């Protein structure tokens, strides 16, 4: 049992390695993944400035622009990942290895988190400097907590999608691309989610980024609480629940899909 545990840890590290080390090997990402998001962030900043929106909005937008790196990673490098791994033949090899499939997903997620953090960090730093953002952090502890919970829940969601899409073909790919833009809107990447109205904002809270962003804004800016959606502790509670829910759900989804795939023969069927 102990050796099994060790092997799974090794598997997580090895799978994360691909993202962390190799993912940053080609320097071209600096342009496509830092400069480009900064440009779209800048566009929103100028719109708000032109409209004389409160000062905080600039900070909100920069935070949203930075967090979009996580969303892109979860969509393209998590949710669609198992489908892609199946196409190139890696899924077979993961499945025949004496490890939990969750280790592969966890490796993918932790590697993806580091990978996205490098990008998010760059956007955040550059954006804060260029637009001279004025932070007024109320509570560092809870700010950090909400960020971490948001990430766990978000990557949990990615793991769930990955399992669900495992045995499907291109449909999955299209499904994933359908999510990209609407979530930018629904989760309030570039404006306080409260503006969507209670029902819509609450529905959007199923996507962990919604409350994650809202909570971080409440805690990082002076007037953040006024523009916040729910009570900060409630948001923390909901995010904690989503964390557990998505992790457990992805575990079962993985088992279910693997079994279904082995029964129907779709687990290893390629190029469909």
């Amino acid at each position, binding site marked *: 049992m102990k*050796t099994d545990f*060790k*092997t799974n840890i*090794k*598997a997580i*590290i*090895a*799978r994360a*390695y*691909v993202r962390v*080390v*190799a*993912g940053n*090997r*080609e320097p071209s990402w600096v342009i496509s993944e830092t400069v480009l998001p900064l440009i779209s962030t800048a566009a929103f900043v100028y719109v708000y400035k032109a409209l004389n929106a409160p000062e905080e909005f600039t900070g909100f937008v920069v935070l949203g622009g930075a967090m979009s790196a996580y969303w892109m990673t979860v969509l393209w490098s998590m949710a669609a990942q198992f489908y892609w791994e199946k196409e*190139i*033949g*890696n899924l*077979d*090899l*993961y*499945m*025949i*290895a*004496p*490890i939990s499939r969750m280790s592969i997903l966890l490796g993918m997620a932790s590697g993806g988190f580091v990978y996205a953090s490098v990008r998010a960090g760059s956007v955040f730093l550059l954006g804060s400097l260029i637009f001279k953002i004025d932070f007024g952090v109320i509570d560092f502890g809870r700010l950090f907590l909400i960020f971490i919970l948001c990430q766990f829940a978000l990557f949990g969601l990615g793991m769930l999608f990955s399992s669900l899409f495992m045995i499907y073909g291109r449909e999955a790919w299209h499904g994933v691309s359908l999510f990209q833009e609407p979530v930018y809107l629904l989760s309030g990447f570039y404006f306080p989610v409260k503006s969507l109205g209670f029902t819509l904002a609450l529905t959007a809270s199923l996507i962990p980024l919604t409350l994650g962003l809202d909570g971080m804004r409440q805690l990082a800016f002076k007037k953040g609480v006024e523009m916040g959606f729910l009570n900060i502790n409630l948001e923390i509670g909901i995010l904690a629940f989503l964390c557990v829910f998505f992790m457990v759900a992805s575990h079962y989804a993985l088992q279910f899909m693997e079994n279904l795939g*082995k*029964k*129907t*023969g779709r*687990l*290893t069927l390629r190029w469909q």
Partner: protein
Amino acid sequence: MLSDFAVETLDLCRSFKLKKAKKENNDGLVTALDNVSLTIRKGELFGLLGPNGAGKTTLIKILSTLLLPTSGKALVDGIDVVRHPEKVRKRINMVTGGETSGYGILTVRETLWMFSQFYGIPTRIVRERIDHMLKLLDMEKFARTKIGKLSSGMRQKMNIIRGFICDPEILFLDEPTLGLDVQISRDVRKYIKRWVKENTKKTVLLTTHYMAEADELCDRLAIIDQGKVLICDSPSNLKKSLKRDAVFHIEVGLLTDGLDRFKAVSGVKSFAYEHRHHLGRTLLKFILEDDSVISNVTGTLSQNGSKIITLSKVEPTLEDVFVSLVGKGLEQ
């Protein structure tokens, strides 16, 4: 050690549902494996030989826990693949011909390291094994090459190393030399052979399309067609079984029409052909009841206006065994 047998299957069946559009047969099912019962001893290099769609890959997928059988039993090292897949996985690995696994941005060394970690092998040991194996397969200078930049031959050599690196008890090789040039497939075969020889309890189950490969490598082999095992024996015994028959090869000018009529010639037990377009010739391969029947064959040829370029009586090869059982050549 749990069993003397590396692999045992008993009445193993697997069928697949066809997609609606393809439902020609009334039940909409295609049978990939049909009551397959095989035993492979530990230490054997065992071959599965069969035409496209025979069920070779399906069998390997079931044994490697990627697919469930429809009925029947399959044991790997005495362990039921359906009931305890996690125990089976500790003992096996698999390499497929033309495999594109891994990540293009990783180097050969990194890729091999990554896959070895799924088996919990300490990094220090992995490093030694990688060096050793790269050397054996003459690939040292590619250790730091990104795998996206490897030629398909080098890539397949790396895949082979990946299969061996976790030192499995039983290795499944699905057409490991598919599409490789003569030199590289020779290297790969040599490596496989050496591994089985050096490790007397280790087992390889290999599928192939290449008769010569099966003949050279395998201790025993099973010929399978349409999901059924037709015969299972050592290559030399299989060839011996044809000794009493007369095997003739006749070369004629390129002949593409009406080849089926040779099957009907009296005394012909089986017939296959191979077009040699670059020479403008067709090689006709006959297995006859006895030598005297050859006159019936040449008679039919001359009736048809075909000129015989060469005619020879040959020692039966594995291919002839295949033809006599399956009723056609592998390339047909």
